[in-house]
């Protein structure tokens, strides 16, 4: 596979109206779900959780142009940590989430040191292995994860006496989290660290020769993306109230890659747009009944033909995308 992230200039420049379109689209979708509620709210809630995950994936794959097929491992760590601590040990959701993120980042640091010495396809294979191993652990470590049975009875997210139980409440919570994550990604993009990642993406050797510590920045990007993945995993189990190994399986890898490329790898708005589009597309083709997957597949192909750098890149300033 080729990875060609679109590297937009990290410079601060005046906001152009056209650049706001992806955000307006996202706001419109979330607003619609908020009004309609019910099934639409559920679909959009999952899309927003994916947006958190993909925003993290984008830090590593888009900003730093590395490959990881194993981010689902970190979502699993975050998700299971939250599930086990809250459902089985009566912890509050927030401390469980924080500990889950910390555990995922720690795991990423442990596997990252050796794995990030790999490049390209080898890194892809190495990270894929991390995801598969984590999956096996969630299946086999029955005393803690209850294997294929999964863990149910996970409380909804909340802090102290405040619990987020309604569809709309969840949407508000997730929107705030996504907004914070996207804002963070935008800040990282423009930061000194973000510029270093752009250099790593451009040419590792040239970056090294300029004194940019390539290995360290790759690792930090990997840790950050693991943290985002764990946050998404934790949010997921609280929204659904149940977790099983399949939730964080290979399907998640494929879906999130699709979101990243459809939305626009390397852009700030791309992960959110991609997560929403890829989540909503199958729903809009529900009328096609048996041909739903066919229509969905065709739509994805068309998107990648006409917006090869993703939807968000269509709104990037001309000549810079």
């Amino acid at each position: 596979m080729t990875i060609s992230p679109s590297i937009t200039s990290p410079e601060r420049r005046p906001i152009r109206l056209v650049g706001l379109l992806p955000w307006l689209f996202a706001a419109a979708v979330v607003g619609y779900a908020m009004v309609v509620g019910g099934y639409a709210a559920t679909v959009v809630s999952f899309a927003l959780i994916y947006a958190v995950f993909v925003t993290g994936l984008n830090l590593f794959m888009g900003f730093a142009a590395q490959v990881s097929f194993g981010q689902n491992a970190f979502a699993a760590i975050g998700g299971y940590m939250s599930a086990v601590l809250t459902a089985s040990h009566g912890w509050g959701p927030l401390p469980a989430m924080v500990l889950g993120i910390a555990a995922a980042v720690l795991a990423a640091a442990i596997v990252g040191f050796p794995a990030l010495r790999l490049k390209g396809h080898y890194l892809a294979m190495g990270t894929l292995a991390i995801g598969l191993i984590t999956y096996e652990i969630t299946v086999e470590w029955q005393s803690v994860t209850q294997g294929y049975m999964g863990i149910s009875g996970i409380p909804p997210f909340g802090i102290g006496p405040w619990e987020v139980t309604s569809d709309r409440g969840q949407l508000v919570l997730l929107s705030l989290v996504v907004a914070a994550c996207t804002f963070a990604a935008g800040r990282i993009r423009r930061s000194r660290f973000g510029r270093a990642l752009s250099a790593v993406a451009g040419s590792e050797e040239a970056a090294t020769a300029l004194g940019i510590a390539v290995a360290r920045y790759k690792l930090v990007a990997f840790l950050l993306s693991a943290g985002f993945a764990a946050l998404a995993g934790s949010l997921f189990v609280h929204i659904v109230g149940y977790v099983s190994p399949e939730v964080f399986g290979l399907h998640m890898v494929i879906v999130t890659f699709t979101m990243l490329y459809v939305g626009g790898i390397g852009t700030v708005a791309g992960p959110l747009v991609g997560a929403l589009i890829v989540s909503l597309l199958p729903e809009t083709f529900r009328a096609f009944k048996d041909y739903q997957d066919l229509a969905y597949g065709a739509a994805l192909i068309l998107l990648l033909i006409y917006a090869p750098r993703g939807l968000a890149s269509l709104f990037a300033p001309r000549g810079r995308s």
Partner: protein
Amino acid sequence: MSFAVAAKTQARVASPMAGVTPPILAATGLSARYGHIHALHGVDLRIGEGELVAVLGPNGAGKSTLLRAIMGLSANSGEVRFRDEVLPRHDAVAVAARGLVLVPEGRGLFAPMSVSDNLELGAYRLRDKAEFNRRRERVLTLFPRLKERLGQAAGSMSGGEQQMLALGRALMAGPKLLLLDEPSLGLAPRVTGEILETLGLLNREGLAIVLVEQKAPLALELASRVYLLSLGRIVAELDPRDITSHDDLAQHYFA
């Protein structure tokens, strides 16, 4: 290389290091390999303070490997001293921190990023804003054409402009020793001339430069000494003034 040529070389170059400034860089027994293939065999090399030294050699002689080995970018062994300090051999970031800056083969620009961002990344290690502005002003004065193209993506410029940017970005790093890998590659003669003129200017201001080239005549005009590299070994060290004809050099190339 035949003994006859070696003897001739010895005869023509009388003690080439005599009268040369103290070395800013001294490599001893520098070897490098790619996997099991040895590309550099125990090279000894000295660059004087403020000196511009050319390394000439045919394709595949190991010129790029030599520069990469000095930077610590490729698997290498031997000793490299920079102003009497031994440089780490496998930590290019630490080498760069000492002030050795490489303009790599193919320029290594960050193609999708703007000219301005590329320059900024050159000074990545620099945190002093005033010094940053000073360097940037200097680069844009040296290469006015970059000033016109600050917002343009680096990859969309002509080869000559890209080489200017590569050089400008290197200067942003505040080099004490500049390592240039074939800056003339793929450029029109006139553009090459412009770039070499700038190198001459920088050198006269005291910047030490190692210039790797295939096109000998251009490098010979600027260099105070020339190393000839062939099959990963230095086969001759010459005074450019002694190389009067193309045949002279060709003899060494094909020896």
